């Protein structure tokens, strides 16, 4: 039987993978993937807890997150394409305009 704990562990593992991805990756596209992974880790946790408590609020929230993630990707990818067109690369180390 797969219980709440297993779902939460899976969620935690996925979230950690996302965090590491955000920190380590240098490619902007990969950063996006990593954030998506983190969002979905949260979704899993929401859905699991919601099901466990027989409360639909969590699942509703998960849908909102999916919607937000979709719109974020739509805007974000558009920006990525513009950046690529302008600089010809998506490597983060090349964008240090704000260096103090």
């Amino acid at each position, binding site marked *: 039987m797969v219980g709440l704990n297993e779902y939460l562990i899976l969620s935690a593992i996925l979230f950690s993978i996302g*965090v590491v991805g*955000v*920190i380590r*990756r*240098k490619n902007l596209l990969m*950063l996006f993937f990593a954030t998506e992974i983190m969002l979905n880790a949260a979704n899993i946790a929401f859905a699991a807890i919601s099901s466990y408590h027989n409360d639909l609020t969590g699942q509703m929230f998960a849908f909102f997150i999916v919607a937000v993630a979709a719109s974020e990707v739509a805007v974000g990818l558009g920006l990525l394409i513009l950046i690529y067109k302008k600089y010809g690369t998506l490597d*983060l*180390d090349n*964008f*240090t*305009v*704000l*260096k*103090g």
Partner: protein
Amino acid sequence: METLVYTALFAPLVSSLFAALFGMTPKRQFVGIVTSLLLFVSFVSSALLLDYVMEFGSIHVTMMDWIVAGDMSVPFGFNVDQVTAVMMTVVTLVSTVVHIYSNGYMEHDKGFNRFFSYLSAFVFSMMVLVMSDNFLGLFIGWEGVGVCSWLLIGFWYHKEDVGRDVNPSISPAWAANEAFIMNRIADLGMLVGIFLIYWNIGSLQYDVVFSHLDGLSHGMLVAIGIFLFIGAMGKSAQFPLHTWLADAMEGPTPVSALIHAATMVTAGVYLVIRANPLYDMIPEVGYFIAALGTFVAIFAASMALVNRDLKRIIAYSTLSQLGYMFAAAGLGAYWVALFHLAAHAFFKALLFLGAGNVMHAMHDELDIFKMGGLKKIMGWTYAYMGVASLALAGIWPLAGFYSKDTILEVAFNEHTYGIWFILWLTAGLTAFYSFRLVFLTFWSDSRYKEFGFHPHEVQKYVLWAMAPLAILAVVFGWYKDSFMEFVTRTLPLYEMSEHTHHMVGVLIAVTTLVAVGGIVVAYLMYSRRLKRNEKIEKSLPYRVLSNQYYIPIFYEKAFSKPYAELSDIAWKEIDMQVVDATVDGIAHLVEESGDGARGMQTGNLSDYLKWMAFGVIALAVLAVFVAMKS
């Protein structure tokens, strides 16, 4: 009647503000004319008020509430009683004359408009001072005249500082600051006195305060009396706060006539007269005032004996006459003090304005040793100054004879023969130095020719403007009895004893004798030509006197220098090392931590994300900790 009160009070203010509109512009003749007219309006109102008060008694008006805080209530109220009416008339009359006179005197000055603005502002402050019905209003006027005095002494502020041996007053700016600072010291005393009054009585209105004095302990009354008198000492330049008055002669001469002879310096005497119910209850303080006044009278007269500076001689004589006034007020003869105050205002203002004419003619030369023989050229000025000097010396039948003689009678009547003797001696000295000045300036040989001066008499209207003062210097004394009857409706009557009545004739005779004696000595010594005696001028007493008893130098060594050094230490050690260092330290801390933290701003998103993740983890750990604790 209210309208008259407000007209008398506010016409000078309007005049000042009007002149201020043109303060920065080149000379406009109409500024002088308009301000003089407004002052004349103020004078007419004051004279009408005097007439009204004479017939119907005092007027009290409350313009508005001024300070209402808790149980303290000070209204903007004005009280015109007999004393105030006399003061107002004297002040506005002299002011009007001085305003008209200044049109001629300041003719070629760059700051013509500015000068009239200051002068009228002074008159307004002086009116507030004498008209206020409470101590706080008096104090505001008191400070107002102080500020105007500062502005006017330092009117030619652009002059450079020079050494004490060249000019004893160093520079107008220096003299102005000296006057202002010395008055601040005294004003602190006065403020303490006012605080004590409020503390003990809970009101500052004259009538309330004076009717509640009985409830106070004797020690408290003495304290209040002394503190108020300290204020009066500063404004009236009594020893040891006297040095500023002679230095104040750096201001334009009309200013010396108006402020440093006729009006402002008498404010201290006015305060003592106004507070007569208080000083009546503490005769020992009154005696101290009289003794100090007597000391100042002879002390200042002695310095005038050897001085060569036309204006400084008159300044010392002012100081000396203020001493007379304090002697009278201190001995309880308040109306006599007021009488001498008014008489002195007329003849001393006349004397100063005459000195201004001489200065004008001599191209601002003040050394009487370089003048002489001017009576042929400046007949009118000579006549004016002669009359004023006769009045000052106390020669019958001029104003000074009546007022000074009455003061001597009072001193005799009080059995304070020491005071009487010193004042009597001073009367002789006064006559001597006054006529030394007159003879050296107007008689004797025409020394000015050697120095290439081309003196000339001043404008006609200036001479006409001085006429009212000359007339009053002559006739004012004749109205002694009606003056006494008038002011003693407010002030306590002073009764001479039978014995004094018998002695009056003798007293008048000896006083006149010493005055005439002084004039004769001056005549013998100076009327032909100036004979300088090197030996006397080198002798110790002469040098002590001509250096003002070395008091200015002593003050500089004992107070100014150590104070400057103390300030230097406070600046370099305390301010720079502690206060500034703390402030700078905080700034450095912020700057350096910012500089250190700058390394974080790589501009690389990846690094920022790392920091963010680190922060989130730190917060999470903190949250876990908090959760575990609770």
